[in-house]
């Protein structure tokens, strides 16, 4: 019962807000916060009590031939994930009370947030492919709603659309993969499909295709190359949403799903190879793009894409444990970083250009402190949470695929570089705008969630802490080479950035290629216009002028020689039609009676 309660409380909140409390903005907010806290309490109980079963209901029942159950899967993986999702969710809800205090669409915002929590918890608890797909789509729509929260502006409206459609492209593959899993194993319930994997025997090509198509879903949701383009644009949404949905939880759902269906992915070495490389390419490219962004949230967004690349890399290296480890530490420190950036943006009156900030450590000491903790974790400073989880992935790569290790280490270097750049430019130096000179610390309702999140961000990597939540990867023989190389990368990255950016008031590098996203977005726009746009115009032309214009009119003129129908048109009255109809009826009667 308790897992269902955790799932349904946020849905109830969304429904209550939409149907009843919409005009009362503050009440809506409290309803939403209460619901997520309720879910968190349920999650705590489930987690510490180890609840393992919950009743299932039947969603579609067509007898023996087709049944879709809605059942909850409670194992250590989903229990921990549920704990994390509701925990971070609760903090972000509370933080939003401050951040969205005066927003006109506050009710709409919190309804969207509640809908998101419902959908996300559904992904975590789903016990079959169809059910995970259902909630998969629902997080997509809630993401659409909150990205487009400020819909009167063009940029958020476009970003919301882009996010949804890009995800749909990934989901096209996902659904096809689900159909293929069902064809081969005879089931889409995870446990039964795992047992039915023998159905793939002798069809390794089909297996690889299936695994990669399921992976497509994760490519969309977790913003992997080549479908990564929506996530940076999604930063047009309110910042707490970026922290919760576009950093800590939803975008990690792709990785979670891959771990959940590890039985499928790991059965195909070819698929694993592809997945590992997609993750690696994403990690490197996104890190390169992050080095030249000037919008504080975009730096963090590309960083998220890059870190998700690490997780996917770990999945591809056949270690779900390492992927989940990094997913958890990343959830803590990246949510923390986004909340920190939100605190800055809030106090700087929605200024997001880091070159118009500066010297914020003096004015916002707590934000600065927690942001630093998050940064240290992200760049993998020894002892921080990110150090351990990234190290786990790099060790794997070192053992299993050396080229990937080299690129992974290079990404670590870039990460250290762009985060140091961000910190130096935002928090140090002289203030470079009026708002930056007059800012102050955010209200307690925003600072407290940041302080709470900095605890797991700081110490979450130590075994005594992490092992409570996760099965940590077994690293085999400890090697000193990997941490040493990582440390060297860290020092080089941090050092270069400090030398380069200390005291600067403008970007000294100006590499347009990285800043303009390697021109990938432009390329996609061009390709869409060249293919879909052209095809659409062509089809519309054919339909209007060839099919309708020539053929239909031609046929009606030609076949009914002399144009019986055209005459009918000219007669232009109802009797003609009634006559035709009557003729038909007479014909029918004639045949029925006399034959």
């Amino acid at each position, binding site marked *: 019962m308790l897992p269902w309660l955790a799932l349904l409380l946020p849905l109830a909140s969304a429904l209550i807000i939409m149907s009843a409390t919409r005009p009362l903005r503050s009440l809506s907010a409290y309803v939403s916060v209460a619901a997520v806290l309720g879910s968190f309490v349920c999650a705590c109980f489930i987690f510490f009590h180890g609840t393992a079963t919950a009743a299932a209901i039947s969603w579609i029942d067509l007898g023996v031939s087709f049944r879709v159950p809605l059942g909850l899967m409670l194992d250590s993986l989903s229990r921990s994930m549920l704990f994390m999702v509701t925990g971070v969710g609760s903090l972000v809800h509370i933080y939003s009370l401050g951040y969205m205090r005066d927003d006109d669409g506050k009710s709409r915002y919190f309804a969207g947030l509640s809908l998101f929590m419902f959908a996300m918890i559904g992904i975590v608890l789903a016990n079959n492919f169809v059910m995970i797909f259902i909630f998969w789509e629902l997080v997509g729509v809630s993401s659409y709603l909150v990205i487009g929260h400020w819909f009167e502006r063009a940029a958020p409206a476009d970003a919301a659309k882009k996010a949804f459609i890009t995800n749909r492209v990934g989901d096209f593959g996902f659904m096809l993969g689900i159909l293929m899993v069902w064809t081969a194993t005879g089931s889409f319930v995870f446990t039964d499909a795992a047992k039915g994997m023998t159905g793939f025997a002798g069809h390794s090509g089909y297996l690889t295709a299936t695994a990669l198509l399921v992976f497509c879903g994760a490519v969309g949701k977790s913003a992997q190359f080549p479908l990564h383009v929506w996530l940076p644009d999604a930063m047009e949404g309110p910042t707490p949403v970026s922290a919760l949905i576009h950093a800590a939880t939803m975008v990690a759902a792709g990785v979670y799903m891959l771990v959940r269906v590890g039985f499928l992915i790991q059965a195909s070495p070819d698929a694993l190879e592809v997945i590992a490389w997609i993750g690696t390419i994403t990690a490197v490219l996104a890190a390169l793009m992050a080095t030249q962004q000037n919008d504080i949230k975009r730096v963090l967004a590309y960083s998220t894409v890059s870190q998700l690349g690490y997780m996917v890399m770990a999945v591809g290296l056949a270690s779900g444990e390492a992927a989940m480890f990094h997913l958890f530490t990343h959830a803590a420190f990246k949510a923390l970083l986004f909340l920190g950036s939100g605190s800055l943006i809030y106090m700087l009156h929605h200024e997001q250009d880091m070159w118009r900030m500066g010297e914020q450590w003096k004015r916002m000491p707590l934000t600065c402190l927690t942001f630093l903790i998050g940064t240290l974790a992200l760049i993998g400073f020894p002892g921080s949470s990110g150090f351990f989880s990234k190290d786990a992935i790099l060790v794997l790569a070192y053992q299993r695929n050396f080229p990937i290790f080299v690129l992974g280490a290079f990404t670590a270097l870039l990460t250290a570089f762009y985060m140091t750049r961000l910190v130096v430019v935002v928090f140090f130096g002289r203030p470079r705008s009026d708002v930056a000179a007059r800012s102050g610390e955010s209200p307690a309702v925003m600072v407290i969630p940041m302080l709470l999140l900095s605890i797991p961000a700081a110490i979450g990597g130590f075994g005594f802490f992490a092992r409570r939540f996760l099965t940590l990867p077994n690293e085999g023989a400890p090697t000193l080479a990997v941490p040493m190389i990582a440390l060297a990368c860290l020092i080089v990255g941090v050092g270069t950035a400090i030398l380069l950016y200390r005291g600067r008031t403008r970007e000294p590098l100006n590499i347009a290629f990285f800043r303009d996203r390697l021109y990938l977005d432009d390329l996609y726009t061009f390709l869409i216009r060249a293919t879909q746009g052209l095809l659409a115009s062509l089809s519309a032309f054919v339909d209007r002028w060839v099919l*309708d214009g020539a053929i239909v009119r031609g046929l009606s003129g030609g076949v009914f020689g002399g144009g019986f129908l055209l005459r009918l048109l000219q007669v232009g009255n109802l009797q003609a039609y009634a006559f035709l109809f009557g003729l038909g009826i007479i014909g029918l009667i004639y045949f029925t009676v006399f034959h």
Partner: protein
Amino acid sequence: MLLLIVFAPLVTALIILLGAPGRVTALAGSAVTALAAFIAFFSYDSARGGFQFVSSWTISESWRWHFLLGADGLSLIMLVLAALVLLGAVWFTPPIEKSERLFYVCLLLIASGAIGAFASLDLFFFYAFHEVALIPTFLLIGIWGTGDRFAAAWKITIYLALGSFVLLIGLILLYRSVPAAARTLDLRGLQAAASAGAIAPAAQNTIFLLLLIGFGVLISLFPFHNWAPEAYASAPAPATMLHAGVLKKFGLYGLLRIAMPMLPEGARHWSWLLLVLLIGNIIYIGLVTIAQKRLDWMLGYSSVMHMGYIFLGIASANIIGLNGAALLMFAHGISIALLFAVAGEIRRRTGTLVFSELGGLAKNMPFLGFTFGVATFAAIGLPGFANFAAEVMIFFGAFRVGGNLGGFHFFQIATVCALWGVVISAVYLLRAYRAIFMGPPNERWKAVPDLAGTLRIPVILLIAATLALGFFPNIALRVLRPTFSSAVAETTR
């Protein structure tokens, strides 16, 4: 019970003709119809299955011709759809300037034509009821339409009359293909004869093709779809709601009721053709839809496109796909009715449906924006709406046909196309939503009022219906399952 459902709209139309006030009477009549349809739906005994609420009045014993009413799960869900959309369409009718009463009479006649066809167990009345509905459609477009309304009215009428004509030939041949002793206009008798193997495979092939084209024209099967967007753009919104939402489903109903179960051999023979055409519906029409620059045309094409999914479910001819097709008929009826209702309200307020002239309307019209958003997400198959549950069943049903691990065959390829169609739907519908409701508000529409007061009730009713079946598809499957596990199960491969 069925008698009440069939005659309530007819009698209401008659009362209005006799001088009763149009709107109030029509509302009352359609509310009674809807209530009766609901009661019938929920009192259907699914354990017993088959046709229930059967009542019969003999017209000619020697011709075996009766006025014969009866309903199974498929009829019932279509009756609920027809009654709900009728109620919505009547409710959404704005003040009419010229001959308001006749307008309501036409609406009621369209609905009673559809309802009569769905409830008839007699071949003659099945056909005749649908024909009756074509005349008021013509009048509604011709008299109250917009744009080039005469051309649109004639186009749809000629198309549909031609389709009906082909259909009629097919139905006559079907009737005649049964040995003289077993000949009957009773659909149950025909089905029994067909199940007993009375119709030779060669005859099945011919007849199925005729029925496919005849019904296909009525459903806007590619390439016989050209009447739809133009007529839907011209017709007044309530007429479009009823036609796109309900009357168009007559063809699909006919395929499910007659062509598929009675002509299984023919269905198998022509399944390749149906697949080719439905891919045309989904991909080709999908692309055409993307290229549209006005909401009414876009919605018209999108309703053509979404027929492709229902065809796919029908073509799969197994229990999963057929149940999905039937559920999607209902779901699509609701979502397209809502979309056209919103389009009508926008046109009434702004006088235009061209994307580039609109924008930011959600600021002034949050409720209308909400409605359009909900209907949009229903139409693109978001989970929670009946459309998703139905599409999932169709995908699973179609993908299963002839499926193996050796590779993809025709049904699998068609499924892949249909899955891509889901992306296409999202592209054009979200683009429309972006263009009309989001973005910087256009100064011209600052003073335009939102949907207010009692007009919100039908919206909530329709949304509630599709959400209910989306969350709990078993409500519909309870009555649908017996239908498709008996009559059509024989065609399952």
